[in-house]
């Protein structure tokens, strides 16, 4: 009963999740969920706590291996893959609980997002000259653009472990952007932020989407943000798909109102 929205979806299908089921021992985290993400859109995944949203992202970038179902990314179908392969195919993500490299500076964190793009030989790395240094400078320029874009110039050389939470989230977004992903997965990018920080972050997400044309899938609990930002929304509950469609359609869906937004009295 998947509802398709040819008119609303922006481009061709970038990623399709097909009847995926995932369980840990006897606990079913995801049951038979299908949906797709189209090129250029902002796709939101919402649902109550424990609905399987983060598990879904973990399946998409290869961290969890589903027992059933297939995932098609850029026309290639696979049932499981290693996370590093997913990354090299162009999937980047941020994490619910900030997963930055705490001992490294902001600059190094974002630079580490360029790892896949860097390939100078170990030999040159030993001397930090020639191709290794040229490459380092080239990528530093790219990273500086991201730093400008996210307005974090002042904390360039601060170890991220010392930064406040809101800035850490921003650095994490920067690190994901440094990978120049085709698909960007954001796991609760605004959790624990105040209104101002949320506005900033929303602006960055929209800018990333429009300026770089990056396709974004995000999980978020703030309904106002979700409904404003996203092109399409998929609703999960207890690991099953409850609804799928534009924000307006989802808002109007009786199942969603009953299960998620609360039954009207």
């Amino acid at each position: 009963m998947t509802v398709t929205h040819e008119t609303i979806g922006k481009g061709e299908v970038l990623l399709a999740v097909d009847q995926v089921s995932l369980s840990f021992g006897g606990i079913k985290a995801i049951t038979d969920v299908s949906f797709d993400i189209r090129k250029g859109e902002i796709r939101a995944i919402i649902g109550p706590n424990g609905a399987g949203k983060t598990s879904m992202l973990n399946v998409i970038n290869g961290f969890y291996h589903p027992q059933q179902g297939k995932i098609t990314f850029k026309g290639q179908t696979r049932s499981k893959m290693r996370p590093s392969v997913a990354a090299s195919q162009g999937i980047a993500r941020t994490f619910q609980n900030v997963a930055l490299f705490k001992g490294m500076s902001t600059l190094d964190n974002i630079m580490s997002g360029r790892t896949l793009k860097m390939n100078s030989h170990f030999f040159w790395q030993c001397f930090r000259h020639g191709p290794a240094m040229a490459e380092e400078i080239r990528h530093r320029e790219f990273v500086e653009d991201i730093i400008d874009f996210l307005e974090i110039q002042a904390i360039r050389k601060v170890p991220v472990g010392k930064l406040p939470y809101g800035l850490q989230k921003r650095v994490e977004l920067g690190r994901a952007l440094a990978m120049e992903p085709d698909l960007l997965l954001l796991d609760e990018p605004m959790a624990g932020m105040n209104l101002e920080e949320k506005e900033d972050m929303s602006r960055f997400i929209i800018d990333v989407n429009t300026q770089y044309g990056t396709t974004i899938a995000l999980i978020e609990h703030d309904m106002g943000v979700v409904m404003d930002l996203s092109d399409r929304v998929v609703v999960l509950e207890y690991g099953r798909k409850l609804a799928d469609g534009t924000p307006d359609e989802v808002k109007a869906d009786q199942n969603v109102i009953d299960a998620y937004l609360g039954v009207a009295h």
Partner: protein
Amino acid sequence: MDILFKVLIDPFLQMGAMPDLFVQTIWDGFVTGVLYALIALGFVLIFKASGVFNFAQGIMVVFAALTLVGLYEMGLPAPLAVLVTLGVMFVLAVAIERVVLRPLVNQPDIILFMATFGITYFLIGLGELIFGGNPKQMITDQLYLPRGAIEVKMLGGFVQFQKIDIAAAVIAVVMIVALAVFFQKTRIGRALRAVADSHKAALSVGISLNQIWVIVWFTAGIVALVTGIMWGARSDVSFGLQVIALKALPVLILGGFTSVPGAIVGGLIIGIGEKLGEFYWGPLVGGGIESWLAYCIALGFLLFRPQGLFGDKIIERI
């Protein structure tokens, strides 16, 4: 082919040809394993309650035995020497809690691990300074431990059981049962288990961490004393024993750092495995493989079960 025969078939033929020798080897391995298990047990107690990878457990064994013998040589009667040694172990527990654990609370695991290295060095120096560096004889008779051996006729030969080994096995069983009862049935035992699960939660319901740590380190000290007596009775008492104490580490990998049954089963597997390996396969490569076989058994095992024998499967979350 010859090599394959020597490695894969010949040892088993030897086992079959002289089953009495085989039983003897198993028994030797079993007793060694019990002693490994005892060291590992002291380790597990501390790791569970304070999250400290206590490298000093092996040294505590030697230190306890050395103190006991040293006090006896200074003229104390044996029972009194045991009591005083227990007192020393208690003071040690309090001192470690005060001087090492309390200032280092909440530091990364590796820092606490390193601190126990400091304790190790300190105890080696202190023990040798007070009691001298020469190997000593354990006061077996004065502690009413049996001597001699029982020879049992079986399988067409004789198998020798040292009485002290039998005593060691019995005492180990008694102590493990006592610890299990202590953990499961008493108020302190419940507090210990609470601390093992979560320090913060335990604190929030009014359990004193400092007190628990002293109790745990003291318990580990008692285990160390018993182990030291048993081990000292089989060889002699000197800091050379510390290398043997390192063997408790592969036992821990096998059994998992937090599992008491794991420590026991792991100890037996390592003890028996390494004796069999040394006796039947060792001669093929020139002997002496006892020094590393235990680690390789543990390592091979770990590749297939990274969580240890009794650990739960780890689900990584992010």
